[in-house]
């Protein structure tokens, strides 16, 4: 197992290197440059030239890339061109927000999807199943920015139950933190829950027709034990893979949610930095995202072999 993990990590190095090159090129080939954006509408070509020189943007691209890479390897992502804040500091401030939001969103989606999916699978084409399908269709087609605004309107403006936006760090107040997280996590989770529900349902239906389920029932196990222990565990194997990869998608979805609920996460920083042509934060965020995607797919694979001994590595 350890061997396998090490091998996987080793393979990740050229992938990351390739990603870093692509990111760097994409960001730098965007039309419009940070010096112009910074100096604004009334800048002269001389001012722009001087600032570009100061920021090192007048150097050839490959030189800039090598400088950036060597600095990154020593853990220095540079400073934001706009705000002069060190990028690592910005990431440390924001990553917890995005990670918390993503994990909570994930939990919410499973909490919604699991009971509906199991109930639908047990009695296909019953009213529960029809309602479940309807729910999934609505969930998939409803844009999260719309759902977010709807939720804000209902729970913050009309009922005054929850805060409309903002973020309170966990260490400041756990209760306040969770209150601020309820609506965004639900908005984000809803988005994934629909597809998760369809996946779990399909897996369950498939598994429930297998001989070993019949055997389990024939042995006289209670229906509850058959369902939750034997069926669900097996149905979950393909689902885990797909859901694990959805975590990455969720992080992307967090961009929208963070914007609606004005939460200072990584996604919001990325969007803003792209608009300002603020290269260093964008490059760092994409790299961090890529690393977390690689890690999450690794975790998924390990989990997979744990759940299904048949594919455990020799």
């Amino acid at each position, binding site marked *: 197992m350890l061997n396998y993990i090490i091998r996987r990590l080793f393979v990740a190095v050229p992938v990351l290197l390739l990603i870093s090159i692509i990111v760097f090129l994409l960001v730098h080939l965007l039309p419009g440059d940070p010096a112009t*954006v910074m100096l604004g509408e009334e800048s002269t070509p001389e001012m722009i030239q001087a600032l570009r020189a100061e920021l090192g943007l007048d150097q050839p691209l490959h030189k800039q890339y090598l400088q950036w890479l060597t600095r990154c390897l020593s853990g220095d992502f540079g400073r934001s061109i706009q705000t002069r804040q060190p990028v690592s500091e910005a990431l440390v401030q924001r990553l917890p927000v995005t990670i918390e939001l993503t994990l909570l969103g994930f939990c919410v989606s499973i909490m919604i999807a699991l009971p509906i999916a199991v109930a639908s699978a047990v009695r296909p084409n019953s009213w529960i199943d029809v309602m479940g399908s309807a729910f999934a269709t609505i969930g998939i087609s409803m844009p999260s920015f719309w759902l977010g*605004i709807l939720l804000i309107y209902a729970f913050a*403006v009309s009922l*005054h139950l929850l805060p409309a936006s903002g973020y309170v760090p966990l260490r400041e107040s756990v209760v306040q933190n969770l209150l601020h997280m309820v609506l965004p996590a639900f908005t984000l989770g809803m988005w994934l829950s629909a597809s998760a529900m369809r996946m779990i349902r399909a897996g369950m239906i498939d598994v429930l027709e297998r001989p070993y389920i019949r055997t389990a029932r024939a042995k006289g196990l209670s229906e509850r034990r058959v369902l939750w222990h034997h069926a669900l565990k097996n149905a979950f194997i393909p689902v885990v893979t797909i859901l694990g990869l959805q975590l990455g998608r969720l992080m992307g979805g967090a961009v929208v949610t963070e914007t609606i609920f*004005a939460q200072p996460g990584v996604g919001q920083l990325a969007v803003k930095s792209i*608009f300002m042509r603020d290269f260093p934060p964008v490059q760092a965020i994409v790299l961090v995202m890529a690393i977390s995607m690689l890690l999450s797919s690794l975790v998924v694979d390990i989990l997979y072999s744990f759940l299904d001994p048949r594919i455990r590595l020799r």
Partner: protein
Amino acid sequence: MNKKGVLIVSVLFLALMVVPLSTSGANPRYGGTLRASVYHEIVTGDPHRSSSYVDRQLLQNLYNTLVTYDKDLNIVPELAESWKTPDPKTYIFKLRKGIKFHDGTEFNAEAVKFNLERVLDPKTKSRARGEISAIKSVEVLDAYTVKLNLAYPFSPLLAGLTDRAGFMISPTAFKKMGPDEFGRHPVGTGPFEFAEWVRDDHLTLKRFEGYWEKGLPYLDRVVFKPIPDQAVKLTNLKSGALDVIDDVLPKDVKGVKRSKDLLLYEVPSFGFNALRLNCTKPPFNNKALRQAVAYAVDREAIWEHLFYKTGIVGHGPIAPVSWAYDPNDFRYTCDLNKAREKLREGGKPKGFKFTMYTKISPIDVQVAQVMQAQLKRVGIETKIVQLEGALHLKVMLEKTYEGNYGLWSGYPEPDTNLYRQFHPKGSANWTGYADPRVTELLDKARESLNHAERKRYYSEALDIIIRDAPQIFVYYYPRRAGVSAKVQNFVLYPDGKLRFKTVWLSR
């Protein structure tokens, strides 16, 4: 209703809405935290390196300037007690005594010299440099007297000192921290001092106990929250999560006014929206074709249907609220026959095609679309291309566009609006407009210290500019703020800056 009638009614309409709740009789209450939205994350607290409009919401509450505007836009003393101009090239300021920066440094003539020299130093790369670049040298006459020697007479100087160039930062704090750090931990003399900044979440200011205006400010804390989305902003105001929002969309005006928990503040501003036509390349290097566009656009319709009859129909680069505005200046009204005549004169009787850029903003795109339909009536075909901010800026600065619709946020000083946009040396002359007579008039107005004379120069220049149509002026937009009913003593100025020095919270 004729055009002038529309204007008068709209001005009256605005004036009625400006009247805030009377607070006379009620005693100001100390304490409390006020939460205000800003449309974008604040970029820097360093006034001399700031280039973003949003920064001013912070700067205005954190710093003082030598001179400032009162709410009727007269220039009045602030850190300077008085000033005189013995000749057009000399300004002498007497400073107030006993003023301290937030870090305890004394405010004096040396501090003024340090600040002005920093703005003037090309190495600072200050966007405000042009506003005071007429200053040749700064002399300290005694601890509280400063003399500015100008290289040439420059009447807009005082106006420049009310804005970015005039904010006074603490020299000791700056020298200790360096420019990067100072921008993140600013130190001034203003009513509030810097407390905390969590990027993209909030920036907090706290009451400065040593503030020189006795008894002020009333609030303990002011929190700025960056919220770009208009709907989110308004929702937060309604839910009570914000006390002041920095803008209200025309379509939401009615709703805010109807709510008994909210107040709408609206004042005419110096800003305007216009379609800029690139005078340096075809088709718009042809004056008659620009004029054809000017005649074909129906501004009234845009004002009525897209701005819900709020604000004022636009006719020129100087808004009616300015002293330089002259109602007798030439103005275009929609006249399709004249538009066709101008097309013939310009050698394109059947019309022509051009591309119109806008920023990615729903209201801007709507205006562009309505203009597109209006221009089509005389055969002028337009293609609308939406550009994201950085690209929009690029085509404008490089003059690689044909038409581009956008806004000019405007300044109380007419020179700042006119010289920058219509003088060949202007820093915002994005259309490449140049007319020898206009250039001469703008230069003369700068040199003159006689108000009536300046007004005459501006009026003549405006008449020529509007006729030449380098920009198709569409709309003078008002500044708006939405405010919770518990916010007392709030005044919205035509520059749109939120000032919290005298604000207090009831309950």
